[in-house]
């Protein structure tokens, strides 16, 4: 494929690569990042939410969708402070995770430990596969 020369003469020689990478990553990931774990009838979701008060996290479950949202509140600062370095981010967040089965809202458990959120969701009882016995005629 041919690119016009102006594409390469920009200040950032990797802008093309970066843009390509950005297109890839933006749609699929958002804050906070989640890891998924699974077993027979359960799925566990872990997410890193450092600095978030557990009371500020809302979790809702409907059909096969698990949504959790919350807010990273900016720390209160005494007056006359000077920032030397600012790398952490603050603000509201929301994340929806689709689970491959219908969820039982009554059995959902969630806990936050050391800034890591863990939610365990169970498969609905009616949804579980049932074993059918074969009778001899």
């Amino acid at each position, binding site marked *: 494929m041919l690119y016009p020369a102006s594409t390469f003469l920009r200040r950032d020689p990797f802008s093309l690569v970066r843009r390509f990478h950005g297109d890839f990553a933006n749609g699929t990931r958002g804050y906070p990042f989640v890891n998924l*774990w*699974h077993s027979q009838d359960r799925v566990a979701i*872990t997410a890193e939410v450092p*600095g978030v008060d*557990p009371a500020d996290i809302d979790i809702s479950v409907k059909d096969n969708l698990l949504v959790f949202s919350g807010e990273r509140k900016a720390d209160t600062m005494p007056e006359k402070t*000077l*920032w030397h*370095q600012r790398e*952490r981010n603050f603000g509201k967040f929301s994340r929806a995770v689709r689970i491959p089965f219908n969820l039982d809202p009554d059995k959902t458990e969630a806990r936050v430990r050391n800034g890591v959120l863990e939610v365990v969701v169970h498969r609905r009882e009616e949804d579980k596969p049932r074993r059918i016995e074969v009778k001899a005629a």
Partner: protein
Amino acid sequence: MFEVESLPQESAPKSECASDSARSARLYRPLTDIIESDDGVELRIEMPGVSSEDVELELARRVLTIKGHVQSTKPEGFTRGYWEYGEGDYERAFTLSEDLDGSRIDAQICDGVLSVVLPRAERAKAHRMAVKAA
């Protein structure tokens, strides 16, 4: 004045990284806010998954090294599925200026954010003198 800056990544001893890898696969550089007030400097370091027993602070020749060991969050009886973030220990080093008192460092961790308070040394504090009218 108050130079609190992170060391370049290369200065971290490689051999130490290797020995740490026995505990977990990766070593991360945690996100840090550095705030200065009249009383001193505060570092706020994000270390999700690290409990208070697993933080190590070491001050040697004015270099403060902060290490956090992550307890695996793998829930019992589950297998790993979809993966967005990696788990590993944290390490970052900061050089303290002469104005900070290294002997009175206070650190506490809450909800995965480590707060390290470095008080200003007494001799570095500003003194206000009253000027008398003659």
